[in-house]
């Protein structure tokens, strides 16, 4: 597997720009199975927020129900977390982002949570373009209920007990693009470097940043015959491009040949750098993204990288035209109109 990251991030600094150490971003002890892909993702979330110097107190973590949805307890204990009901995390996160638009929100979900019981909420959240990072830790099975197929299981994939899935999988990235997402990526839990870079870009993105991460279930879906196992994913990982990310506070000049790297500026001045690999892929073209995703399915590939990126999309909170201060803490004189207003309304009703 090729190194998927442009060489931009050096060794981890002892202290970030808000004076915190990586330890300040840690969470509780994981209760997931040893070697679970989800834990690898949690580690990259910690690293991304640390390196982006986002104060954990300004972060809100959301999840639904399932193994993946336990993970917000395992990173950034100093951030408020909300483990909602099965499949309904998008609504809760939507409400919270409306109440406090200054929160940096991250949601972690699974393929059962997002592709089955919560598919409707997920798609509507994408359609609204809620400003948050939304990660699906995708392993094709229900873990907590001990290994039933989910809606992202590949056709022909086999359970441990020999049952074969004969329904087609849902491609959440393709669905996200269809519903208007402006940031759609696919990662692999076994590729932490690519993961952390995409996460940092997702944090900087103002809008819904959707990341579908293939995260093998070591207990129920890591055997031969599974198409969401570590060996299968490693073998079939098709990297679209090397992903680089330059946060707004790091004016690093990159040394590259003109035309070799695609440079996309985000709202906050950060830049996403996508270094071409084997093909001329334009992540700003939704049609091409869809075509490429479909082609990957028929070729048995697992495409990773930023599949689609539209930096100009307006987030829901911007569209609503609400005040800059969090709605949740507005003072009484702002949220209760004066007596004259009631008098006027009453007079009109007489």
């Amino acid at each position: 597997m090729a190194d998927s990251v442009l060489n931009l991030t050096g060794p981890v600094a002892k202290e970030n720009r808000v004076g915190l150490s990586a330890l300040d971003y840690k969470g509780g002890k994981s209760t997931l199975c040893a070697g679970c892909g989800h834990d690898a993702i949690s580690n990259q979330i910690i690293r991304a927020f640390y390196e982006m110097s986002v104060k954990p107190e300004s972060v809100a973590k959301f999840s639904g129900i399932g193994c993946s949805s336990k993970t917000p307890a395992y990173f950034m204990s100093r951030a408020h977390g909300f483990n909602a009901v099965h499949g309904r995390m998008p609504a809760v996160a939507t409400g919270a982002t409306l109440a406090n638009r200054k929160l940096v929100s991250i949601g972690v979900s699974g393929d059962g949570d997002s592709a089955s019981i919560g598919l409707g909420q997920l798609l509507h959240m994408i359609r609204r373009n809620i400003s948050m990072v939304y990660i699906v830790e995708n392993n094709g099975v229900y873990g907590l209920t001990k290994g039933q197929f989910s809606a992202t299981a590949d056709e022909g994939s086999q359970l441990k007990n020999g049952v074969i899935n004969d329904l087609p999988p849902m491609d959440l990235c393709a669905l996200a693009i269809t519903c208007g997402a402006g940031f759609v990526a696919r990662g692999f839990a076994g590729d932490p470097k690519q993961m952390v870079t995409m996460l940092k870009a997702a944090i900087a993105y103002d809008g819904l940043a959707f990341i579908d991460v293939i995260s093998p279930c070591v207990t129920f879906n890591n055997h031969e015959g599974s198409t969401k196992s570590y060996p299968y994913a490693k073998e079939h990982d098709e990297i679209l491009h090397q992903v680089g990310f330059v946060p707004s506070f790091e004016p690093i000049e990159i040394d590259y040949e003109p035309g070799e790297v695609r440079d996309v500026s985000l709202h906050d001045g950060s830049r996403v750098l996508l270094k071409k690999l084997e093909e001329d892929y334009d992540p700003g073209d939704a049609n091409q993204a869809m075509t490429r995703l479909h082609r990957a399915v028929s070729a048995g590939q697992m495409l990773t990288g930023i599949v689609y990126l539209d930096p100009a999309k307006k987030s829901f909170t911007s569209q609503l035209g609400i005040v800059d201060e969090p709605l949740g803490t507005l003072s009484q004189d702002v949220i209760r109109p004066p007596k004259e207003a009631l008098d006027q309304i009453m007079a009109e009703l007489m």
Partner: protein
Amino acid sequence: MTNLSDSTVAEERDSAAGERTNDLTIHVATVNGSGSQSSNNVLMRAIFQMGIPVSGKNLFPSNIAGLPTWFTIRASSEGWTGRRRNVDVLVCMNPATGADDVKALNPGAICIFDDALGLEGSRDDVTFYPIPFSKIAGEVTSDSRLRKLIANMVYVGVVAWMIGIDREELVSAVERQFSGKAKAVELNVEAIDKGIAYAADNLEPQVAHRLQRMDKTRGQILIDGNSAAALGAMFGGVTVATWYPITPSSSLCEALIEYLKAYRLADDGKATFAVVQAEDEISAIGMVIGAAWAGARSMTATSGPGISLMTEFAGLGYFAEIPAVVWDIQRIGPSTGLPTRTSQGDLLQVAHLSHGDTEHIVLFPGSVAECFEFAMKALDFAELFQTPVFVLSDLDLGMNSWMSEPFEYPTEPINRGKVLTAEKLKELGGKWGRYLDVDGDGIPWRTLPGTDHPDAAYFTRGSGHNEEARYTEKPEDYVNLMERLRKKFETARGHVPRPVIEREEGARVGLIAFGSSDVAVQEARHVLRRDHDLATSYLRLRALPFTKDLEAFVADHDRIYVIEQNRDGQLRSLIRLELKGDPDLRSILHFDGLPLYARFVVESVVAMEGEKRNG
């Protein structure tokens, strides 16, 4: 085809007999979608402006256009605003229901009808007035589409002339109805004048059914319960409102949007609120829970089917202690039921909405003024008790127009409940527990996401949690939590609105009701006293949990009639659960989808009292 007239076959002749001024019911039968709403509003408004107490009820089908619809206006010099089944003046514009509408009339009633319907002579105890509405409308406009609307305004003029509604009040009501549209005002006034002129030339003014100016509405307002609730929410400081369209609750959120746009923009024109039309009711309450968790005063409004969908989140809100306000504008269930008919059938479900042991604070507004007041209270209670608060209104209260004293501006400041700020956490040295009962009232302290203190955060979950908000499956932790939630509910008992109690000297019979039943029960008590020499005391419940007043009231009476608008006696069941012993609680149940009316209560009480006396 639905025909409401079947259920309005008249038997209530006693109280309507004889000539009485300012005491009549006008029933207008039209085709849904024909634009009669404006005409009916003008009629009602004009009567109101004449100083005569009035109420209006729209009986409409679940349909956009074509099915029958009725509007009933009751003028009552004594101020009774509940439904009355006797119809004195019928306006028949709908060929599909004309014959049945006429059958339902009391002897002595008059029937003004579109002459094409040919209803004359179908009864000899009713006076018929065929009117060439279409022809008269044709004199006002040649536009065939407009002519239908204009014909409706012509009946306003005809009725007004016959029963004595002042023209000047009609004109002022039209100006109000078509505010800012000079052309429409002109056209409609012309239509009314044509109606008046036709009536003056061809008809006789009524003697038995007559209105004349009085002075009983001065200073009063006319408003529907949903608009009142929206106003209350706005003055209660709502900042996030979500909704999914469902009859009969949609008009609450639509009114809220209008009020917020008019009165809640900051100086720079930005909104101090967010309103989201969700993809379904699950999402609507999920957003409310998320927003309230992050500090917003949040609410949603729905009806029965939406309440069913909100069940899981209601349990999360109760168990994880997150504020939320949910208005349930009840309609007939179960299932889709009768979407445009009123009911009090969600009570039992809402009281314990969720799987597992759950009990909710529920408010029962009984008037538009209480819709306003409880909208503010609900937002306060939700944050004060950190729990979902339900407000049970219904279609009759929510969508119909009611007279009221003007609403009073709140005297109490907004109550945000127990929230620890970063400063407060600093004072505490960061030592706190999200679910610790430090004050002994069962209500813990919470922090809001985004609070800038390293110890502010906690993890919210609908799974088992201890006082520090950590995951637990320990039996004692679960029991502790559930006992504290019970304690919190007991604390709420001391805060929720107490019942309104009207005792009558020597009364052995007590009536208990809630919500929109109030107007009919009030009138029934009056009739029971006047016509049956029966004194009753009355307790109107206004909230769950019940307060101690209920037990005392029941103990003080020999027999209690629990009056409610559902089949199963849901309120009576809740009262039975609450009270010790086996008090004599009898049910009076009205559940055909139309609003409760006084005569029904009177006849039920008299029948059961008679049985009691005989037995």
